[in-house]
């Protein structure tokens, strides 16, 4: 049973982590190395042992983009011939860049808010209200309030908070297909016994589909069904089936 953790102690989200790593990298060596960043990022993600899948998905989506960027850079000049792939990557990268800039912007705003709050905290408002001689003039707070309304207010105040129903729109479709992808990918790896990430996504052109398969493999890895290995620093990811044949694949409830 995975624990339900809301965030990692240090980083509140994938953009924050990535932003931190990139800016730190620059300070350290004045020369940004994407592979250092990817390694550091994946290290951080790996440390998130107790993370819930919701949040893990957000981190891994970014990881997938980073890895793809890294892969692309390692094969300069190699002509895949697939312009759509190329454009999709550029698009993904631009999106990531915008998100990072947003993240930086609002982190800076938050610092100013924090200063404002600290300053405001030095003053205390007068809230004493009218003196008792005006009490008889004050409109009745409970005017028109029935005992039933008091009961309803109590129910409202003590009701368990309703299950979350919004806010997952942006990831829901992806997660839904990860569940399916786990089955197909597991079958593919089981049959091959030993394959590579490149093979698994061979022939797939839809960017999201590739990410989904990447996530599925990571999930299988987490479940102990496959072993992942990157033999060469920039090599393809080797995937080895470890699972027992008759074991059924546990699929997490991606719908939440």
């Amino acid at each position, binding site marked *: 049973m995975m624990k339900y953790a809301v965030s990692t102690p240090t980083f509140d989200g994938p953009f924050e982590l990535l932003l931190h790593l990139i800016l730190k990298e620059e300070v350290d060596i004045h020369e940004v190395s994407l592979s250092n960043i990817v390694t550091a990022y994946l290290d951080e993600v790996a440390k998130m042992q107790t993370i819930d899948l919701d949040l893990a998905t957000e981190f891994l989506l970014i990881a997938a983009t980073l890895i793809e960027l890294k892969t692309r850079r390692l094969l300069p000049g190699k002509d895949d011939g697939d312009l759509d792939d190329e454009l999709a990557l550029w698009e993904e990268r631009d999106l990531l860049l915008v998100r990072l800039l947003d993240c930086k912007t609002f982190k800076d705003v938050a610092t100013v808010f924090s200063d404002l709050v600290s300053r405001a905290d030095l003053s*205390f408002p007068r809230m004493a209200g009218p003196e008792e001689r005006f009490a008889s003039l004050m*409109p009745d*707070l409970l005017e028109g309030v029935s005992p039933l309304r008091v009961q309803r207010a109590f129910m409202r105040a003590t009701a368990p908070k309703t299950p979350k129903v919004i806010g997952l729109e942006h990831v829901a479709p992806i997660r839904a297909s990860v569940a399916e992808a786990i089955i197909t990918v597991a079958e593919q790896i089981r049959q091959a016994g030993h394959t590579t990430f490149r093979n698994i996504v061979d022939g797939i052109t839809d960017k999201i589909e590739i990410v989904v398969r990447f996530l599925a493999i990571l999930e299988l890895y987490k479940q102990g069904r496959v072993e992942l290995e990157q033999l060469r620093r920039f090599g393809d990811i080797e995937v080895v089936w470890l699972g027992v044949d008759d074991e059924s694949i546990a699929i997490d409830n991606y719908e939440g």
Partner: protein
Amino acid sequence: MNQEESNLDPESVRALEAILMVAMEPVAPALLAQLLEISQATVEALCERLAATYEAAGHGFQLVKVAGGFRFQSHPELAPYVERFVLDGQQARVSSAALETLAIIAYKQPLSRSQVASIRGVDPEAVMRTLQARGYITEVQRDDGPGQAVLFGTTPLFLERLGIASLEDLPSIADFIPDASVVETLERSLRVVPEDPMSPEQ
């Protein structure tokens, strides 16, 4: 600051003004003396001179001694304006927050402010002060526990305003309190990972 005012120790005077400005009720000279680290006699003297200064300057507020403590209040000469303001009703919005707090106290009394806070998830201090000022809730006793927290309950006025004779006339909540299993089910439905016996993590 005029000649008379500047004869007073400025720091103590300013601190007095600041504390009395944010106080919700009259502040005893003993407490002021302790906070300012000056003698009670000095507090009394400073407050009296301050009150005289305000009066001489023709301010719309006063510093007065009531119920054994000092407080700021509106000047009686401006009462017509204050009455208009009070009648305007801006002060009397029954927010849903206020009603919820009142409902919790009505059903769970006696209970402390921190107990209300733990149910509402926010510090109800301001709301409870308003309810107390309106005479709907009052301090009923002190907790036996180490902190001796003040416990609050509703007043006869509260019952009167609701048009009921006793607390027993409030609609019952017993049927509606979600039992443990309901809460658990809700919690489980919020979990991302189901407790699946097939899962290798078990």
